[in-house]
């Protein structure tokens, strides 16, 4: 393992000159510190309490390196465009680098600032430095340091006060080649009273293994609203780490929806720091088959009074899949009148599937209302029986109930075009392939 770590180190010396922002001392300092810390820690292992159910040893068996796409002609343009969502600004990243040719953001209003991280570091480095690593400063694990050292590009979005993205922004991360490292670092700054809807999707044009690491830092101003939907739909060999770190000001509202359907080993992290009287809603659905390992990790800090958090994650695990949920709510001593609820429900469909869950409440204030609930089980026999008495055969009844279980999460998506996309993907990934689409209509 250490040998691989060293190799990352050696490769870094050769490659880092191509990474963006080489002329910026503050960024070089960040990268240097992160690289040193990564060489100490390595990638997380199941010996770390926060990573105890997931095994990322595959990441250390190979060396994944950034591989720029020489020319867009090499890429199947129609395949990429097929991932576009109608009535959205579609932003395309190929192997962790922004693609101007494929992206379609021409209609973006002028008062909204959106560009690639590479360009932002060239043209507005001070503004980037104001936010870079500010939402992740207390994080200390291998993946975050690895991302800081190795990121090749990303996106930067800035919405001034009182503005609104009139169409949702769709960020498509495409991996085109085997053994590629797609490392992006992304920042969204949403000003006071502003509003943005974002969707990020992760897809593969290759069937081989590769590594995605994406870190999103999102700063939500007073009274602003952000909804962020994530669809991880990578190939069955892909390794995926993505962390979304959010800082919410007073009365800011944040909704995150995570759908993990693809990948071999996938870790999805959502961490938010709530401001006074702010609200967050974290929802997720993970659908595992074969030997997939899908890990969801969330952390909500209630630091100030009157904030509300709601969280629901659901898992459907078939064949030899393993689903993991770790949710942590920390109510600090000044966070009186906190209202927090967390739920995790798991459906085990096979003898070999496994669900591990670890909901945690850490509470230091007394005037709070906090609850969490977990269930793990199989489909309710009486419900199946009921459907059978209505002349629906057992298999169809089971499919129906499983679909209903999952669809509850899809229904929570407010943007029609996103909901449609996720639903389509859900149906193709569904354990029971003969699922009839008529039910949905």
């Amino acid at each position, binding site marked *: 393992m250490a040998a691989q770590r060293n190799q990352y180190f050696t490769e870094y010396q050769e490659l880092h000159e191509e990474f963006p922002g080489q002329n910026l001392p503050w960024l070089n300092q960040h990268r240097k510190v992160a690289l040193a810390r990564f060489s100490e820690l390595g990638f997380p292992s199941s010996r770390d309490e926060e990573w105890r159910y997931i095994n990322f040893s595959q990441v250390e068996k190979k060396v994944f390196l950034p591989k720029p796409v020489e020319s867009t002609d090499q890429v199947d343009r129609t395949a990429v465009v097929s991932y576009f969502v109608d009535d959205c600004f579609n932003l395309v990243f190929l192997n962790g680098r922004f693609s101007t040719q494929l992206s379609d953001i021409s209609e973006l209003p002028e008062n909204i600032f959106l560009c690639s991280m590479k360009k932002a570091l060239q043209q507005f480095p001070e503004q980037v430095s104001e936010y870079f690593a500010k939402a992740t400063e207390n994080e200390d694990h291998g993946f975050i340091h690895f991302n800081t050292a190795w990121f090749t590009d990303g996106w930067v979005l800035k919405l001034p006060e009182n503005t609104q993205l009139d169409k949702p922004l769709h960020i498509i991360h495409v991996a085109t080649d085997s053994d590629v490292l797609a490392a992006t670092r992304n920042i969204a700054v949403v000003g006071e009273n502003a509003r943005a809807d974002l969707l990020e999707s992760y897809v593969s044009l290759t069937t081989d293994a590769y590594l995605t690491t994406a870190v999103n830092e999102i700063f939500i101003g007073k009274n602003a609203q952000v909804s962020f939907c994530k669809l991880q739909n990578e190939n069955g060999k892909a390794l995926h780490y993505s962390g979304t770190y959010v800082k919410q000001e007073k009365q800011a509202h944040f909704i995150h929806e995570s759908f993990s359907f693809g990948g071999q080993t996938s870790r999805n992290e959502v961490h938010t720091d709530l401001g006074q009287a702010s609200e967050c809603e974290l929802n997720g659905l993970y659908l595992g088959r074969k030997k997939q390992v899908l890990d969801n990790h969330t952390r909500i800090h209630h630091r100030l009074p009157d904030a509300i958090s709601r969280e629901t994650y659901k898992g459907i695990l078939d064949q030899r899949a393993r689903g993991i949920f770790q949710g942590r709510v920390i109510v600090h001593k000044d966070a009186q009148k906190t209202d927090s609820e967390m739920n995790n429900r798991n459906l085990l469909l096979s003898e070999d599937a496994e669900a591990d869950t670890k909901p945690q409440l850490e509470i230091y*204030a007394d005037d*709070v209302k906090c609850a969490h609930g977990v269930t793990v089980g199989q489909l309710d026999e009486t419900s199946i029986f009921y459907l059978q008495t209505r002349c629906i055969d057992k298999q169809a009844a089971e499919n129906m109930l499983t679909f209903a279980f999952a669809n509850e999460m899809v229904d929570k998506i407010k943007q029609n075009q996103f909901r449609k996309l996720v639903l389509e993907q859900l149906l193709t990934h569904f354990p029971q392939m003969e699922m009839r689409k008529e039910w949905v209509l």
Partner: protein
Amino acid sequence: MSTSAQQIENLIGKNYKQGFVTDLETESFAPGLDEVVVRKLSAIKKEPAFMLEYRLKALRHWMTMKTPEWAFVKFKPIDYQAISYYSAPKKKEDGPKSLDEVDPELLDTYKKLGIPLDEQERLAGVAVDAVFDSVSVATTFKGKLKEAGVIFCPMSEALQEYPELVEQYLGSVVPHTDNFFAALNAAVFSDGSFVYIPEGVRCPMELSTYFRINAANTGQFERTLIIADEGSHVSYLEGCTAPMRDENQLHAAVVELIALENAEIKYSTVQNWYPGDKTGKGGIYNFVTKRADCRGDNSKVSWTQVETGSAITWKYPSCILRGNNSIGEFYSVALTNNYQQADTGTKMIHIGENTSSTIISKGISAGKAQNTYRGLVKVLKSAKNARNYTQCDSLLVGDRCGAHTFPYIEIKQPSAQVEHEATTSKISEDQLFFCQQRGLSPEDAVSMIVNGFCKEVFKELPMEFAVEAQALLGISLEGSVG
């Protein structure tokens, strides 16, 4: 001392009335731990050879281990070489044959604690084994129990009289390699209780062990082993207290329960070790490993605990549900006040088919205390139709305390049904106001509400214990309101 100072002193004393020291001549080892100490201990106890071997094996393993740090508790590192590993009241040549020969000072101590060792004085039929510092000083009702075929005696006696039973079962549930404190205990345990209930016997009375730490600078390491043979039934109670001292004392016990086919064990604890004073000085470190093995089909183990004492409590009474249809239960009330810290909960490991477990945990945190529930529910692939229900409620009294819930749920069997619920809240102003309106003082009102909150657990306790537990909660909460 002036009168007012005296009054204050009394008030403080009231908080922990078991905090006195008994002046006794004791026989203690010099502080320190190495093979020589273990050999000496084993020799004093006149133990069979296998025991010494076991202890040495454990000691060697312990030497290679590090103090675990994952728990949600903070304490200064313990210097294991500064602890004396054996302390016992000095006794006459052969040891007491009957109660008449027991040092009257000792009898007085237990009387003060409300544990009369005199058989006539016992109101209900409860057999008591009294463990003072490192040794058992008296066991009551031995004769009556023997008639029923029940063995209830100090561990040291069991090692001499029933070595084959001890050898067969000791360490079979908690091996000496299990964890840091279990390894330490296996190396240096000095006494404890041994219970064997033969096939088909329903133990005619409740069995009880009363642990008392008295000497300073010693650790208490007792080992309890309860074996319920096929179709038997036993209810066992455990109580503990210690003097008030400024230094922290270590208590690292191991309890092993074995339930064979159709057997049932009910194990109740009221833990009231000295919790330290209001500023967090002193108190017992209670680092205990308790585990039950439901080895036979249809066996049942039920843990009930009321934890009000100790500066730090770190324990997880667990059930390994190996037999088909076996049942594990865990009912717990953990109350922390002032600077107390508790990291407690349970582990339910489902292995057999149709196994079921219930976890009811009530945590109350007051003052500047930290109270953590940590529990594991693990359903292995073989545990078809396993069932678990977990409920963890926390109550916060005051705005400087913490209440935490860390459940771990690992399920490998689709037919398993697992439910977990947790809530955290504070005593509502309305409830308090209502009680006060009816003429209750704020303190009584809090005590009453807390007792109501814990009712589900208290009803599992044997009668006398339930009364004691309720009174204890009231005392432990004193000074936490306002």
